[in-house]
C-alpha cells in the first residue's frame, strides 16, 4: 500500500511517500506505525511518541485501532494546525 507523510513526520522520515509491503501480523494503524518505526532512525524519531502521530486511511481520519486491510493510501502526520 502507499504510505504518505506530512509536516515533521515527513521531515524526520526523509521522504513524502512510499510503497510498503506490510507483513501478515500488521492489521491496524497502530501496528503499521510500530512496524514503520522499526525501519530506521528517522522512522523511529517520527514515531517516537506514537500517541501524538495521527493517521488517515484513504483520506479519512483513522484511529489507532482502525483496520488497514484493503486500504489504498495511509497517511501519518502531526496534529493539525491549519486555520
Amino acid at each position, binding site marked *: 500500500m502507499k504510505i504518505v507523510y506530512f509536516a515533521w513526520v515527513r521531515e524526520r522520515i526523509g521522504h513524502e511517500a512510499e510503497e510498503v509491503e506490510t507483513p501478515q501480523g500488521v492489521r491496524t494503524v497502530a501496528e503499521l506505525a510500530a512496524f514503520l518505526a522499526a525501519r530506521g532512525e528517522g522512522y523511529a524519531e517520527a514515531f517516537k511518541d506514537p500517541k501524538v502521530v495521527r493517521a488517515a486511511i484513504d483520506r*479519512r481520519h483513522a484511529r489507532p485501532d482502525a483496520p488497514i486491510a484493503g486500504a489504498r493510501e495511509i*497517511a501519518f502526520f502531526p496534529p493539525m494546525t*491549519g*486555520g
Partner: protein
Amino acid sequence: MTDDGRFTIRIQSEDFDTAAEIAALSAGRTDIGAVVTFSGLCRADDASGEGCLVALTLEHYPGMAEEEIGRLVEEARARWPLLGATVIHRHGRLVPGENIVLVVTASPHRGAAFEAAEFLMDWLKTSAPFWKLEERETVKNWVAAKEADDAAAERWR
C-alpha cells in the same frame, strides 16, 4: 466541492477577495437574511528569544483537505439551515498581513450563520489536514497544536 453552486470549498495558494466571495454567495438571491464572514490572517507575533515571525508556510494533504472540509460543511448543513457557505484555505508561504483562511456562511437568520461559521472554523483547525511551519528570524518550527483549539471543537459534540 460544489453542489447547487452555493457551497464552495477551495484550497489554493493565491489570495482571495473577501468582498467578491460574499457577493458571489448572495448574488441574485432574496432568501438570505444573514451572511457571516470569518477571515484568518497571518499574524506577526513575537516569540521570546526566537524573534519575530517572518512567514508561515502552510503544508496540506491534497485531496483530503478538500474532502475533510467538505465533510465539515455537510455536518454544518445538517445542523443549521444554511443557504450557502464558502470555505477557502490557502497553502504555501504567507507573510504577516496576508490572508490564510476564509469562512462565509449564509442563512435566513443571523444565529445559524454565526454558529455555523464558528463551528466550521473550530473543526477546520483541528481536523482539516494543514500544518503551519513558522519561520522566525533565527529558527523554523512546526507550530504545535493547541489544547484550546481541541476544546473549542469538542464543545460542538
